[in-house]
């Protein structure tokens, strides 16, 4: 099969294609630059655009989280709790199974006094200083599935369920906050 010639050397040089490919390269560089800029902005997680809040300022429960997270990459759910939610120096937060499924809690800060499974989720109980006006609890989670992810979190009304798991459905104080995330692969 004969290749195209350049002068008297048979080299297969396709000038038209190479000029076209250079334009493709430049477009590729522009796409790369755009992706890096979007990455810096947090569109792919860990930046300003990724920050989201569920719940209103001043509400008993407000959750700061990343609306864009990444597969198998740790992320944080920061639950801010108001004084009225504290009872006898403790606060209980319910995480629904829809949240925990595909995004298990790796650890909490501070360490939970108890983590009691209930039929529709897990109730984490934390010790808080009685004089505190508010408290913040961090849930370190790690998404195990990619795609859209929705889950609920709420304050637990009343005392936390016993550790033997004998209670039925959690009596979560409505309304539960919805955490909506997009997990990148």
């Amino acid at each position, binding site marked *: 099969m004969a290749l195209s010639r350049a002068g008297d050397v048979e080299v*297969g040089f396709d000038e038209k294609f190479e000029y076209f490919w250079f334009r493709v390269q430049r477009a590729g560089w522009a796409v790369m630059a755009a992706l890096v800029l979007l990455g810096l902005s947090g569109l792919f997680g860990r930046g300003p655009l990724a920050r989201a809040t569920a719940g209103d300022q001043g509400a008993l429960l407000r959750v700061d989280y990343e609306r864009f997270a990444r597969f198998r990459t740790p992320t944080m759910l920061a639950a801010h709790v108001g004084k009225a939610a504290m009872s006898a120096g403790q606060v209980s937060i319910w995480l629904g199974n829809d949240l925990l499924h595909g995004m298990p809690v790796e650890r909490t800060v501070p360490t939970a006094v108890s983590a009691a499974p209930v039929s529709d989720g897990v109730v984490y109980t934390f010790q808080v200083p009685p004089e505190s006006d508010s408290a913040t609890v961090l849930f370190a989670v790690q998404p195990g599935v990619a795609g859209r992810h929705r889950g609920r979190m709420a304050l637990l009304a009343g005392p936390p369920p016993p550790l033997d798991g004998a209670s039925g459905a959690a009596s979560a104080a409505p309304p539960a906050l919805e955490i909506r995330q997009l997990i990148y692969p």
Partner: protein
Amino acid sequence: MGTIIRAAVAYVVLLSLFRIIGRRAVDHMTPFEMIVIFLVGGMMIQAVVSDDRSLTNGVLAVFTIGLMHVTVAWLKDRSQRFGRVADGTPVVVLGRGEWHPERMRKLRIHTEDVLAAARQNGLEREEQIKYAIVERNGAISIVKAEDPARSATGS
């Protein structure tokens, strides 16, 4: 399954990346290019393997990459157009005494690179070069002039 998909995607991404970056990153391995090669490879390995460090996972990833490689080679064999997209074509940057600066600029090849390739072929001067061709893999091939004076005039 995730490892196989990630390995396949990583292969396509890297192939596209190096075609978009340009040939220079593939050959002429100066420290400048080595940084790109090693960093990119290292980062992609982590993304493919993730936190599964089993032999099974490693073998699946490697076999997927191998299969992708064979598939791309087969496609290049079947389709000249695909071959051009995957590899590009050789580009003549010096022919019969005439430099093509526009082509060199697009390839980010400099006169010094061509002369270095010439020296590797035992040549000492530009007039001894009949053709300098940047190959698909980024290497520069030198066709020696039989007679330096004749190659410059084209006769």
